[in-house]
């Protein structure tokens, strides 16, 4: 009985199943089972294709199980230079961009709780408004190009440093820390920065982990900035952008054979395997951090906390 309670369902107290319940349960389990499989299967299908012998993949013989196990596909992809380049760029932007965003969000989140600050409300509102209002894509693009942030790696990092939503999450969290802790440090003559470093930073680690993990996923997945700002610098393309290019090339194999690096290996690999392998390379990091992310889901969902 006690076990039943934690399930929280609306029929938590039912003990004997009526025929109606049985039918309901069968349908319910079936629905969720099928939907869950639809969420897993595509990843599995792409994966078994990448570890199968290219001959089987090309002739369409892979359906549910891999055939002719091999890692040759990954090794061949490793020879594609622009793919490595994109991996490096994406890893660099993910690490650097996330680290800066977290440090700045935590400092800003702490500062906006300080009522003594000169015109605090004004600055805080200024940050909040940016979440609901923007000038539009083209003015944004023209602004970035005016600032010299086109065709540069900095375009991936600098605009993302100040993330208002994350600042608000940190602010809400800092407000929940008992004020007495900070006050006692203040009495001992600690400066604001010391308080931030020695008290606020360590105590707000749970929320910082949350924004770090969501920020990192965002950086890893970002595609628009590479597409719009760095269109003329293929050496700066992110992994998502690279994948997008390979996906579109499939419909045009002639264009693919013409482009240097790929034509060399195109004889060994067909477009399908190239697409699948890059997709796998792009998915794997997300699947790796995913188990760690789950416990931060609910903190990331503090929608009600967003208040000016």
């Amino acid at each position, binding site marked *: 009985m006690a076990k039943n309670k934690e399930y929280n*369902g609306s029929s938590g107290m039912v003990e004997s199943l009526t025929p109606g*319940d049985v039918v309901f349960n069968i349908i319910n389990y079936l629905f969720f089972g099928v939907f869950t499989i639809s969420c897993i299967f595509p990843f599995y299908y792409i994966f078994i294709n990448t570890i199968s012998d290219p001959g089987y993949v090309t002739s*369409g013989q892979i359906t549910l199980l891999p055939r002719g196990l091999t890692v040759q596909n990954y090794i061949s992809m490793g020879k594609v230079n622009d793919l490595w380049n994109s991996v490096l760029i994406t890893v660099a932007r993910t690490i650097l961009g996330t680290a800066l965003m977290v440090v700045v969000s935590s400092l800003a989140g702490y500062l906006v709780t300080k009522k003594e600050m000169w015109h605090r409300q004004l600055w805080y509102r200024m940050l909040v408004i940016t979440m609901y209002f923007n000038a*539009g894509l083209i003015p944004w693009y023209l602004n970035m190009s005016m600032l*010299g942030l086109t065709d540069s790696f900095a375009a991936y990092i600098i605009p993302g440093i100040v993330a208002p939503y994350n600042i608000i999450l940190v602010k809400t969290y800092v407000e929940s820390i008992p004020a007495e802790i900070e006050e006692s440090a203040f009495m001992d003559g600690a400066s604001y920065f010391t308080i931030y470093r020695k008290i606020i930073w360590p105590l707000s680690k749970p929320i910082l982990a949350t924004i770090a993990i969501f920020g990192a996923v965002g950086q890893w997945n970002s595609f628009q900035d590479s597409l719009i700002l760095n269109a003329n610098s293929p050496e700066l393309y992110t992994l998502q952008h690279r994948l997008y290019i390979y996906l579109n090339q499939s419909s045009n194999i002639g264009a693919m054979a013409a482009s240097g690096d790929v034509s060399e290996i195109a004889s060994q690999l067909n477009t399908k395997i190239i697409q699948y392998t890059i997709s796998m390379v792009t998915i794997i990091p997300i*699947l790796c951090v*995913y188990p760690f992310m789950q416990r931060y889901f609910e903190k990331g969902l503090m929608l009600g906390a967003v208040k000016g």
Partner: protein
Amino acid sequence: MASGFVADDKEIAKRHEQMKKSSRSLPQKIADIVLIFSRLAVVVNVILMFFPSFNPARLSDLIGRNLSLFSCGVSYDSIVSNFGRAFRQGWVTEASFHKLNIFAFLIIISVIVMIGGACMSLGNTKTKKYGLIASAAGGALEIVSLVLIRSVYDEIVFTSREAGKLDKVLPQYPFINYAYYAVAAVVLVCTAITFALLIRTPSEKNFEMDPKYTLFLMMLPIIALAFVFSYLPLYGWRYAFFDYKAGETLTADKFVGLKYFLQLLQNDATKKDIVRVLRNTFAMSGLGILTSWVPMAFAIFLAEIKNGPFRRFVQTFTTIPNFISWVLVYAIAIAIFNTDGFVNTFLTNVTGTVHSTNYLMSSSHAWLKMLAWGMWKGVGWSAIIYVASISGIDQGLYEAATVDGAGRFAKMWYITVPELMPTFFVLLLMSVANILSNGMEQYLVFSNPMNKDAMQVLDLYVYNLGIGSGLIPLSTVIGMVKSFVSVVLLFGANTFSKAVRGESIV
């Protein structure tokens, strides 16, 4: 007890501050006012530095129009990107431009020093005095750099005249240089006045600053970044009123007033496009709003699953698609639905006849397909907030209902749904407010020649128009209208929420 103590403490601090203020002498008060001008001048200087139209280092027409003084200072390559031929044929010497690069960098340094001085001017008298030294040094350095840039200009004129290529190099001395001189002069004059005023005021022992300014100065870089990336783009709205093509400079004669706003209403081709795009936008957003109850239903039915491990399994794996990008979703779509994707391979192997339908290339049901992909990606994640709310519902309610003989569906409908309604309502209003913003990524990746008419939503249309076709004014106009409408919708939704629930949503 503790709070009473703190209040007292704050009051003491306040009185202390008032005492300090009243005890300040007249020269100090005047100095504070003078310093405001000095700080403003520094702010203006910083802003000038980042605008390409105010670049004093653009000494030749060959230097890129989109370079700001800042770019000229940090990157030599950007200055000389158009100078290949000029250097090879000896119209100008590379040395002049190396110098130009260094002098532009000196201006950046001088501005940084002045920023330091301006920040210190918020402190006590001792801090102020040291800040004055910084301001004076920065202002002087800036003027020296400007004079040196003038000498580089003379040098360029000289070498290009020698080479007889004055018309090719087109040396120019930007009028805007005098603005920099003026700003530096304001800083120097204010510094001198303040110095004269404060020279008799004794310095304190330590560097100190009112906490309200310390906090502000810590916040300042963050405010500056937010300003640059979220407010500065508004300056780009001016392109809506000019006949502007990418790469040109804006000049007054290109001003066309409301031409592009009227084009939106009068030009038949544009009007037809807009109607089609709006239909797509409203269709996609509308379908999203009509199905916004699905995540709630998902969570409610998920709660009916009594097998804990299975429920967690479902929750874990249905959330994954939310964390992959739309490009990857498209990769998955290709893997499953392409001519040689899973569905065709499977059908071929099972039925023995060759199937090779390209499900992605068809133009039918584009809206519903996009809805389905959106659902597949988002429903598990959107359900989490409802799952969390369901676990917070008082179990007593269910027990009481059971005793009263309520069945499974009655309890869902009369207990769970009403408990989830507030959350649902907020999310619904937010999606109504965002009706014009479906984002472009999903529609961009899934577009193909077959379905592109049905896929073009507003965001994608603006992208195609502005970035793809280079029609900057028209796409800016559309973006402006969209921003206005979005704000109005948001305020409307917020007002509605206040009236109905007594609580705001933003």
